[in-house]
Every structure is written in C-alpha cells, then in structure tokens.
C-alpha cells in the first residue's frame, strides 16, 4: 500500500509528548495498512468528521462479544482499512505483564492485524485495533491455543472486569483486588462472552477509597476496599512528619515550596469529619466518626495505616450520562468481608441478587443504575436483603410522599364508604 500525503498527521509528530503518528509510521514499515490508517485519519482531520460506517456485527463463533466491527465509508481510497475490527483481549488483572507474553501478542497481532493497539481500553481490555473479518477465527484460534488467552466483553453482557494494583504494590489496599477480579472473571466467562443482560454490566475493584480504577464512577458493580476498626498510628512517624523528616503526601507536592508541613492545616483541618486532634504532640483519631476518606493516610503514609479489620464497601449502578444523566454508584453494602478462602462466596451472592432482579425487571438498554432510579432505591435495597441503614443515603427524604402497605396500617385498607358516610354526612 502506498504512503499518502498527510500534512496534518505529520504535524503531530512534533512536540514533546509521544506521537502516535511517528509510531504509526514506524509500524507501517512492517504493517503497510498503517499507511492507510494515516491516510484515512488525515482525511478525517481534513473533513473534521469520522469516516467509519455505523456498527457492523462480526465476531467469533459462539461468542456474542469481544469484537467490535468497523467498516470504512471510503473503502476504495484506503483499502488497507476497509475492514477495521477491534479485538478486545481480556487483560490480566491490574495489567502486569511478562515481556514474553507481550511479545507473543505482538507477533500474533502483526500476523493477524494492523499491528496497532490500545494499551488499554477504557474498560481495561488490551485492545487490538483493526483487522479484517477473515482474520477473526484464525486469530481466536491462535490466541486460545498458543497464548492460552481469551477475549473480553462487549455488547449487553458482563464487561471485562478491572481492578487497581492493590496489594501487589500499594500499602493502602484492604482487599485482594487481583484475586477477586480474576476469580470473578473466570467464574463468569459465560456472562462475559454471551450477552444475556438488558444492557452492559461492569465490575471494577479498588483496594481502598482512593479508587484508582474509578470504580464508583464507572462500574455497575463497584467494590472498594475499606476497614472497620481503627486507623493504625505510628506516633513517632507523626512526629517525623511534624519535624520535616518525611515529605508530606509521600512527596507528591515536592515540586513547589508550600512552606513547612503544618499538620493542623494540612491534615486535621481537612479531615471532613473533624475527628482528629493533637493532644500535645500525640495524634488522636476518634475512629467512630471517621468516614475513611483516606486523606490523613494519604498525607502521612509512614505514620498512618488502614485498619486491620479489612473488607469492602459495595456500591451499585455507576454509569455515563446516556440517557438519564450520569450516576455514581450508590452505597449498597456498607461492609463485606472479601474472602479468597471461600472463593468470594459473599460477593457472588450479592452479584446474583442484583442480576436476578435486574434481568427480571430491567428494560432493554437500561443500566442497573437506571433501573434503581426508575423503581426506587427502597425496593432495590429490599431485593438485596440488606439491613436498611441511614448510611444508604446522604440525607433522609425531604418530601412526605411515603408508601405504606395495608399490613402496616391498623385496620388495613378495606373501608366501607357507606359506613363512613353514616358518621360523615356528605
């Protein structure tokens, strides 16, 4: 395939940030269709519009997801990308790789596709960007046989679960994010590969409330590590911070002179619950009022550690704005043990409760968060069989429109209007 004249693409080779254009040109030496990618991108830059057709249902036999079909609306001009389907490989939990595995993927994709990838897709997949329909089955065969690796999700199914790196390299993690993520991914292979839901459903797992995988904003089922007992305090380290031996926030603000560390201003005053105080040079935390926001721990990681009684808070129903407006996930299970020993039974139990209900009452293309909005949080919480607690809301309702059942009201609902009229003339 010939090079195209791509002045605008070329412009994007300049500048300090890594250039995808330079990279495309480099790959083009081995994967000539990359010239057509560049040419077609140039056309979109010129026309200020996409040149892909709508949709395109392709896939591998027996799977309802994992591949997103794409066809060019200018196939003659750029035959190399007339078909340009993406293949979603289910990334290993928290995206650690051996170079050996990665090189296998590279070879496979150079053979079977454009050689271009997304590391990674927003949901978390390792996305192989652009191939033709006839390559899909062979690619899938090689992937499963040679790499023993499988596809991720797309369509109205369970999407590829994702997690933060958790205990692998973070002192804050209260749960085994990878173990949980991987176990559920394996447990629900069928739900990932064969759409049977009203709409997409996403799992994300963060080890602590910092939520580095954006679970509470981006997943229908968000599990965030937390703890129930007290923050562990190393008073000497506290002094260390006060004396300036350690940089606050692990040095995250080192680039600017913010003056001497001021524990009152930087920690105590920013605690959202005002539950910390200094008694002399001893830091005291009223843990019963702590909401585990992480701030103090983030600022003084050497002095403060998450508690020992660890578990997770489960929030349900996050989504992007289409159609009722964006939703964050709503706190549903305040605290749950996350136990690899029993294969995360408790978590699975929660998931299936949600699915059973959603699959029964959810409308087509209705995310579970929208279903909860439509039917009401009280009903959802009842379905979940959780103890109703004030923690489920930011504040009690301000309207007085409460539902009552006949069983809750003395005498029930059956009344005889004629009897009533005897006492109350019309």
């Amino acid at each position, binding site marked *: 395939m010939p090079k195209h004249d791509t002045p605008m693409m070329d412009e994007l080779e300049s500048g300090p940030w890594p250039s995808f254009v330079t990279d495309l040109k480099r790959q083009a030496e081995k994967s000539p269709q990359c010239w057509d990618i560049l040419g077609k991108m140039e056309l979109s830059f010129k026309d200020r519009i996409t040149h892909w057709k709508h949709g395109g249902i392709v896939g591998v036999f027996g799977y309802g997801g994992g591949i997103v079909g794409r066809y060019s609306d200018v196939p003659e001009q750029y035959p190399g990308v007339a078909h340009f389907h993406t293949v979603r490989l289910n990334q290993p939990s928290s995206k650690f790789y051996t170079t050996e595995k990665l090189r296998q993927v590279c070879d496979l994709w150079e053979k079977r596709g454009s050689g271009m990838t997304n590391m990674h897709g927003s949901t978390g997949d390792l996305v192989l960007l652009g191939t033709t329909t006839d390559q899909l089955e062979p690619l899938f065969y090689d992937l499963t046989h040679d790499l023993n690796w499988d596809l991720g999700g797309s369509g109205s199914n369970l999407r590829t679960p994702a997690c933060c790196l958790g205990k692998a390299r973070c002192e804050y993690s209260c749960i085994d994010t990878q173990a949980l993520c991987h176990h559920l991914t394996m447990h629900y292979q069928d739900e990932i590969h064969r759409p049977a839901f009203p709409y997409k459903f996403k799992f994300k797992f963060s080890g602590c409330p910092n939520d580095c995988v954006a679970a509470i904003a981006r997943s229908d089922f968000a599990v965030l590590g937390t703890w129930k007992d007290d923050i562990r305090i190393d008073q000497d380290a506290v002094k260390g911070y006060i004396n300036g031996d350690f940089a606050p926030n692990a040095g995250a603000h080192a680039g600017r002179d913010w003056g001497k560390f001021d524990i009152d201003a930087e920690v105590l005053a920013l605690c959202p619950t005002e539950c910390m105080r200094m008694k002399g040079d001893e830091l005291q935390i009223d843990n019963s009022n702590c909401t585990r926001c992480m701030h103090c721990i983030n600022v003084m990681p050497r002095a403060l550690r998450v508690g020992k009684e660890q578990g997770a808070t489960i929030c349900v129903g996050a989504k992007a704005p289409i159609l009722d407006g964006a939703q964050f996930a709503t706190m549903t299970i305040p605290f749950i043990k996350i136990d690899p020993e029993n294969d995360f039974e408790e978590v699975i139990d929660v998931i299936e409760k949600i699915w059973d209900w959603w699959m029964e009452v959810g409308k087509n293309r209705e995310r579970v968060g929208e279903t909860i909005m439509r039917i009401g*949080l009280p009903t959802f919480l009842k379905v979940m069989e959780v103890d109703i607690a004030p*923690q489920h*809301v930011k*504040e009690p309702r301000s309207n007085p429109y409460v539902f009552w059942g006949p069983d809750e009201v003395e*005498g029930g609902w059956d009344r005889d*209007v004629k009897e009533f009229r005897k006492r109350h003339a019309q």
Partner: protein
Amino acid sequence: MGYDPENPMADRITDIGPPHFEQMFPPVVKANYGKWLYHDILEPGVLMHKSETGDECYTVRVAAARLISVEHIREICDIADAHCDGHVRWTTRNNVEFMVDSKDKVQPLMDDLKSRGNKFPIGGTGAGVTNIVHTQGWMHCHTPATDASGVVKAVMDDLFDYFGSMTLPAQVRIALACCLNMCGAVHASDIAILGIHRKPPMIDYDAISSLCEIPLAVASCPLGAIRPAKAENSAGEEIKAVAIKQERCMFCGNCYTMCPALPLADPDGDGIAILVGGKVSNSKSMPKFSKLVIPFLPNTPPRWPETVDAIRNILEVYAKDARKYERVGEWAERIGWESFFEKTGIPFTIKSIDDYRLAYDTWRTSTQFKFTSHIK
C-alpha cells in the same frame, strides 16, 4: 343604616385594601423608622432597640394561642392602652409584642402581664423555642390528618421552659401542618410536625357524579393511580366514576382536594410524621428543607404523648450535642445523618429513603460513612 338586603349594591365599597400601616405604628416606631442602630435582648422575651436618635424601643413579647377570642384580644387592648398608649403588634409566628418607649415602663408592663395567670407568658426570643406556626386541623379544615391547636398546646406545654429561656445552641423553629398541603410551610422548619394519611381514598359512588369532574380527579394524582372507570351506585345505576390502584397511592390527598367523593381521612390511618433540619434564613448556610425522620406517630388526643416525647427527645439531644449558633439541620449535617439517628435513638426506617422525584440526589454515592450501630 348598614347593609340593605333589598338593595345589596347600594353605595357598595370594594377594593379599599387594608388600613395603612403607618396609622398603626407606635410613636417611637414612627419617629425612628429606618433609624435603628442595634438591639439587645435584655432577658427572654424582652428586646431593646436603640435608634441613632438616641430613642429606645422596648419590646415585650408574649405567647398567644393562634386561635384566640375577641375577648382575649380586648384584654390585650386593655394592656396596650394601659402601657403602650394603644399600640400592639403580632409577629410572623403568632406572638404578641407590646412596645414601650422607655425602660421604666417595662417592669410595670411585665408585672401586669404576669398578673394575668398563664395567659401571657413572656419569651420567644433568641436561642429558644418560639411559638409554633400552625394551621387549622380539626378546628376548621376538611383535609386534615391530625389536629393543629390541640397538638400545639400539648407540645408547647411540654417545651414551655424553652419558650421562656435562651439555652439552646440556636433558635429552634417548630411548625405544624395538618396535611401534606403544608399550610404551615413545615417544609423548612427545625422541627416539623406533619399530619399524614396512610389509607388510600374511598370512592363514594353515590356522590362522585354530582360532586366531581372525573377528568380533574384523574389528573389530580401525581402517581397516576386514578383512572376513569364505570361503576354502580347504591341506586344500581351505572355511572362514570374512577378506579384507584391502591398500591400506587402515597396518600398525598390531592385527589380529595379536587374531588370530595374520594375521602381518605381515617382514625387509625391518619397520624403524624416528624421532619427535622429545615431552615429558612440565609444565615451561615443556605435555606434547607426539613427531612423526614419519623414516618408515623398515632393520633392520640388530647395530648399526643408520642409526638410530644419525640420532639422533646430530638430537642434535648440537639441541645446537648450541637455547637453554639448551629441550627438543627446544620448540626445533623456536620455529624452526619447516621449519627443523628444514632444519637437521638430514632430508628431509621426505609420510609426515610426517598423514592419520589429528584430522589437520586439523596442517595449516598461514596464510601464515606460512619460505622454507627446501624451496621451489624
């Protein structure tokens, strides 16, 4: 000569409005209108306003039942004539204010007021509980789910000490509305007493045809629980009526307002809900709506002990726990609503979780919460 039924239009006068306020001002008010510099609360119920002219206006505020007789008003006039050269005012919360223009007139006025039994308790200022804004209840309205005057009397008898003192963290404004129409505007009160129904409307087939326009009745239901339906009246005639999906009803009573043939009131179904944490003023925090914390308390005349106790409990926990200047709602938000329920011991029920419009904004979309005893 007066009104002549024979000839009703004879020299008829209309649209003259109320008397002009200025005729009503006491001299010291007229003279210092717009000139006030500052004020002091000398003791509970007694205000002194200082003018840049040097004048002072002393106000003695006394409680009144909002339901008062002309005889009682005449007695108020007697007092005003004796001490306030014939002027008096009512506050926006139904208290009565006697004003005098010098300090030495205050004590005699107060002595007089105190000499009249429990008719004129002095107070209602500052960080205390002032008079309850309320509505008609069984005294005059057709849609109430509870009484007004009776409940107010019972509650204020119990909170009486708070009316005559200023020991609370901030002013606590209590209001009562006897149905969801909320004439008492309890939607923004520190503590709100709200009459609620819990039984769906009955359908009076013998009255509906003559009393209601079916389309209006149907349209009146915010939840679409009412639909047109044929029915049979006692006379056995088929009539145009309505059918009600009872499980959809949340007892707002709007259908009864629009159609008298759909009564909801019921001795056991009706009762009181308690809402807290509302405020009107823009002081410190912006206005806040009251929040429903106790979904139902029974109607137990003559003294509604459950309601009286519930309010005292909230007030006392608040008094102990809140900071100076902190309104009930500001306090609850600072400690978190989970702690509000914990400290007051009020059981949190599913009824407090919003499932009406705009409900989503009240859900907790964060991992931030306290481990109160609610979490097992």
